[in-house]
């Protein structure tokens, strides 16, 4: 009984205090719920690093925004959509969470979208790649920050066709993501004047790629596009190298490759591999400074997903600071109105379909001889303007755009 009384007294005192400071912040605190894969396949590219990145955005604000404290809660969704949906609902219903962040893997993002739509909360998606998040599956409050399959397709696809890689054969993971990626890249390749000779659908996950590599070899295509991700991409690239595909003149195009993937393939094998990235730590002074800070906290250089998480949280907080409220619609309007300006995105814009349009980069894996350190892995070959990477808003099939 006494405990309950103390609690009530405490809570009301706290709400009084905060109420005095900022009448417009709900519950007197800005709370961000960050959900990521902390223990599974994506824990390297997102995971705890993403939580650190979000924390860094909060620290930049000194821990308070518009006079109210900023809090972050994190959860490991274990790549399970039901755990994500459960947590998101719980956070929204009982935890006073105002926005969800990171949300790697599309199944999780979609599940949280459903909750965000019903509860009118902002969802800052960084880790998921699927274009549907800003197309048929879009919601008014769902913001897709870091990249998507279309941008990957445009970046890598058109660049390689321009270099003369005009006939393609795909190794496609036999599931929705793989097919979407193959479709997007095929469209880009054909639009740039190339041809698609065929594709082999491999099971997901596949343990051995040699026979698919052989089929790709037999196709005679100049480019073998890998419409898969993670371990599948790594294994396919290793097999292609082993079977002398690259030595025989065919080019490998990894369509979704992250820096940890490059590290696990090994620079020897991966050198020359082109990939589209949203971010690389070694681009300019700003990214280097930020990444160095990140490195000191985690012992690793940040991935695009992690940097994107930072950017999305920062922009969200900036909008709250500017409007003095955490009311979803007001903040959302402000976020759309302000350009996204930070070390991750320069002059990024937030469209009404939820897409954050910013420049993407075509990168190439350095030769081991060019590399000056463990993390000196990529060189930026080309900047892909945001408009080109993400296409015009008119292309979006989002009904609420």
């Amino acid at each position, binding site marked *: 009984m006494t405990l309950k009384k103390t609690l009530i007294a405490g809570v009301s005192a706290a709400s009084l205090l905060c109420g005095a400071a900022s009448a417009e912040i709900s519950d007197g605190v800005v709370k961000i719920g960050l959900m990521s894969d902390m*223990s*599974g*396949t*994506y*824990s*390297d*590219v997102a995971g705890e690093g993403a939580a650190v990145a979000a924390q860094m955005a909060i620290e930049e604000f000194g821990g308070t925004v518009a006079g109210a404290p900023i809090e972050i809660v994190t959860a490991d969704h274990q790549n399970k959509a039901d755990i994500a949906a459960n947590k998101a609902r719980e956070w929204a219903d009982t935890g006073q969470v105002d926005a969800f962040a990171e949300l790697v893997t599309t199944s999780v993002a979609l599940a949280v979208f459903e909750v965000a739509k019903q509860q009118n909360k902002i969802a800052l998606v960084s880790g998921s790649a699927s274009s549907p998040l800003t197309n048929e599956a879009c919601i008014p409050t769902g913001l897709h920050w870091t990249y998507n399959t279309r941008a990957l397709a445009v970046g890598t696809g058109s660049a390689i066709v321009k270099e003369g890689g005009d006939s393609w054969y795909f190794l496609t993971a*036999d599931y929705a993501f793989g097919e979407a990626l193959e479709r997007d890249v095929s469209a880009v390749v054909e639009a740039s004047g190339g041809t698609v000779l065929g594709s*082999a*659908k*491999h*099971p*997901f*996950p*596949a*343990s*051995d790629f*040699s*026979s*698919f590599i*052989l*089929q790709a*070899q*037999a196709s005679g295509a100049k480019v073998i596009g890998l419409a898969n991700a*993670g*371990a599948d991409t*790594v*294994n396919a690239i*290793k*097999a292609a190298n*082993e*079977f*002398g595909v690259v030595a*025989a003149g065919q080019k490998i195009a990894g369509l979704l490759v*992250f820096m*940890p*993937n490059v*590290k*696990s*393939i*090994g620079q*020897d*094998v991966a050198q020359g591999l082109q990939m589209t990235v949203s971010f690389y730590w070694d681009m300019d002074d700003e990214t280097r400074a930020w990444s160095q800070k990140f490195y000191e906290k985690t012992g690793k250089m940040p991935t695009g997903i992690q940097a994107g998480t930072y950017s999305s949280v920062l922009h969200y907080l900036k909008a709250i600071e500017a409007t003095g409220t955490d009311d979803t619609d007001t903040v959302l309007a402000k976020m759309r109105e302000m350009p996204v300006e930070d070390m991750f995105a320069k002059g990024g814009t937030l469209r009404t379909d939820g897409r954050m349009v910013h420049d993407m980069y075509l990168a190439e894996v350095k030769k081991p001889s060019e590399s000056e350190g463990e993390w000196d892995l990529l060189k930026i070959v080309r900047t892909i303007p945001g408009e080109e990477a993400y296409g015009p808003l008119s292309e979006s099939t989002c009904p609420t755009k």
Partner: protein
Amino acid sequence: MLTDLLGFPPQVLFGQLLLGLINGAFYAVLSLGLAVIFGLLNIVNFAHGALYMLGAFATAGLTTYFGIGYWGALILAPLIVGAIGMLIERFLLRRLSGVDHLYGLLLTFGLALVIEGSFVKLFGSSGLPYAPPPQLMGGVNLGFMFLPWYRGWVVLAAVVMCLVTWYIFEKTKIGAYLRAGTENPKLLQAFGVNVPLLTTLAYGYGVALAAFAGVLAAPITQVSPLMGSNLIIVVFAVVVIGGMGSIMGAIVTGLSMGVIEGLTKVFWPEASATVIFAVMAIVLVLRPAGLFGNAT
């Protein structure tokens, strides 16, 4: 036309057959390890995939931290992981003697979760790079396909390992003890044979086989904590098809399932993930004890 077999040029077919055989070699070594363990302990070793992963990690770790190359790892990694296996048997599995064998399966399932989960924590989910040994770089053009030397070596090493194991179990005195231990451990104990020690050794040997497969796999697949977690289910199906506990069954079925899977990848790639399970279903209808098993 003769050059086209079912719409596929024979070169492609030969190539896929050979590749299937290579994958079959992995299945054979892994299912052989399971068969050895099942034969003597009567448990299904659910941790087999995790121990296979340990073998690959030991290989990469020996190179990174101790400068020991592939050939050293080929000997050392199975010994190290085999020793870990013997500890598992001695201190965990042995406590389950006398209770339902299903508990052994559940215990090893739990162990697999612990091992794989800890490795994700320690090494991250992306894994470590590992290159084939310099002696086996490159390959040979067979006319119908380019065969990397390393893949050729995998088949050779795996088949030799299988035959050695078969010889030990079927032709030597230790093998006779082991088989006797399977049939009637109490009687064997009465004859003065140290059956618990034999059991520990058998588990260690089965685990070492898994680690051996892990070493072979390290240069060609991603060395990552979860590399064994899905593979193991396929290997289970192989063991069921071959007949649980049958040494020859494990070897022959492992190789032939690799070939069947390889052919499926050509004719119907989408089904290649499930073809082994389908074969298993058919075999079970026709021969419930598996192809080489005795009805129990």
